[in-house]
């Protein structure tokens, strides 16, 4: 499959670059942790309320950290007319979209894998056994974020004030994901099971599928504009 | 504020805003119409020159 090969090729390039220079992932990781610290000072979180507020705070931290990653997403392509070169090649534009989505997704998942337990330690939470289920919900939400975020990262690529514009456009459209992820995590923390959270999870999956498809189809027009 | 006070406040804001916007549009319309006709006439001169 030509598309898959091209996607993997671009993805491999990005991952290799990241592995060597580690700029995005370190910055994102420290920013995410820093946010957790700031939350601790900004919100008085008594021990009983910590579990209630955990999903919201965590997801806020991921949202801002992820936005940081998104603004960096096409950085490599912007330098040295790399993007023009890519567009001149007969490469399928959709594979660039797929590669960027997976790249951002990998970064965010790695960070979440570390930040989740870190949050648990910092805020003295119990329920360590629920972490995998919580992570699954966060995973679905992160997919939604990456899918739409990558598209809008490309949309705002050549706009002025893009660091401000990107969240301005992205966040209102992300509201279903924010609501579904946080409510889903809350329900799991409260009841320990998935059953009540199913409608939220279905919404998340629907969101992911719809906007993955739309992004996949539309990206070509955006990147060539 | 009485009930009618709220009603008049709401209706007042709505129609005021709509009127302002309409006035704005009409002003833009007249301005661009003038510009267009001046460009057209001078453009015609250029063509013939």
């Amino acid at each position, binding site marked *: 499959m030509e598309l898959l090969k091209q996607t993997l090729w671009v993805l491999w390039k990005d991952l290799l670059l990241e592995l060597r220079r580690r700029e995005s992932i370190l910055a994102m990781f420290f920013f995410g942790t820093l946010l957790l610290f700031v939350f601790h000072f900004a919100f008085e979180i008594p021990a009983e309320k910590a579990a209630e507020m955990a999903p919201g705070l965590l997801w806020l931290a991921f949202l801002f950290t992820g936005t940081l990653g998104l603004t960096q997403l096409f950085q490599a392509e912007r330098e040295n007319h790399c993007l023009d070169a890519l567009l001149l090649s007969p490469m399928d534009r959709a594979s660039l979209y797929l590669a960027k989505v997976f790249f951002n997704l990998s970064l965010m998942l790695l960070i979440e894998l570390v930040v989740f337990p870190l949050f648990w330690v910092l805020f003295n939470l119990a329920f360590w056994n629920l972490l995998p289920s919580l992570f699954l919900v966060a995973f679905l939400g992160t997919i939604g974020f990456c899918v*739409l975020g990558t*598209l*809008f990262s490309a*949309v*705002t690529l*050549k*706009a*002025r*004030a*893009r660091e401000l*514009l990107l969240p*301005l*456009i992205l*966040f*209102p*459209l992300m*509201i*279903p994901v924010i*609501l*579904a992820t946080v*409510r889903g995590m809350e329900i799991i923390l409260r009841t320990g099971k998935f059953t009540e959270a199913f*409608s*939220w999870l279905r*919404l998340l999956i*629907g*969101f992911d599928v*719809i*906007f993955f498809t*739309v992004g996949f189809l*539309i990206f070509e*027009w*955006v990147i060539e*504009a | *504020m009485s*009930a*009618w006070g*709220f*009603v008049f*406040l*709401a*209706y007042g*804001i*709505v129609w005021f*805003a*709509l009127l302002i*916007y*309409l006035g704005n*549009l009409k002003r*833009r*319309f007249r301005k*661009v*119409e003038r510009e*267009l006709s001046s*460009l*057209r006439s001078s*453009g*015609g*001169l*250029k*063509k013939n020159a």
Partner: protein
Amino acid sequence: MAGTMQKRGRGRRVTGILALAFILVGLYFALIEAPPDAYQGDVQRIMYVHIPSILTAYLSFFIVFIGSCLFLWKREKRDDILARSAAEIGVLFTSLTIIEGSIWGKPTWGVWWTWDARLTLTAILLLIFVGYLMLRSLIEDENRGAVCSAVVGVIGFLDIPLIHMSVYWWRTLHQPPSILRPDKLPWENVHPSMLIALAVNFAAFILLYFYLLSLRFRVGEMEEEVKTLKLYGGAS
């Protein structure tokens, strides 16, 4: 070419006059003829502008969606102008909806703002509209700006049902349904004048909307023509 312009101008004027007529009749029905609500009193009359405003705002967004889709497909300038015009007027009507809702809420609920589903959704709609317009103004290349904002227009519209669902679930799970919502229409014992008032005002708003849209569209077309003339000299 000039013939269609004239026909359009005439159609616009007719719409405008009709709109004015309906507005005046609507005002009469809303403020004088319709009786005050059994529970809320006269404050409920705000409904006669609030409901048409909401519907007009959503209609506008739908037109942004259609314009954006058509533009992405055919790349014809006029579709972009349509989308842009509808977005501008949409921001106006959405803002008005929020203001009306807030004013209605103060005497009814005692607060200027509440995170109930209707107000929250309208606020989100406004944010998406604003994002659309800001994107346009911050991208310097004309064509790229048009394509990119069209993408926002399409995705924004596709997202609306999902936003709707998530906000409604969130609100119904957390708030007791005992709060009297001003948009809950009491269908039993409805006085016919109330329905007429609503219908007339609704027609008035729709007519006014299309009048404004058509005017704004024409302005947009002419501004485009000015730009082209300036760029390429007298060839028209």
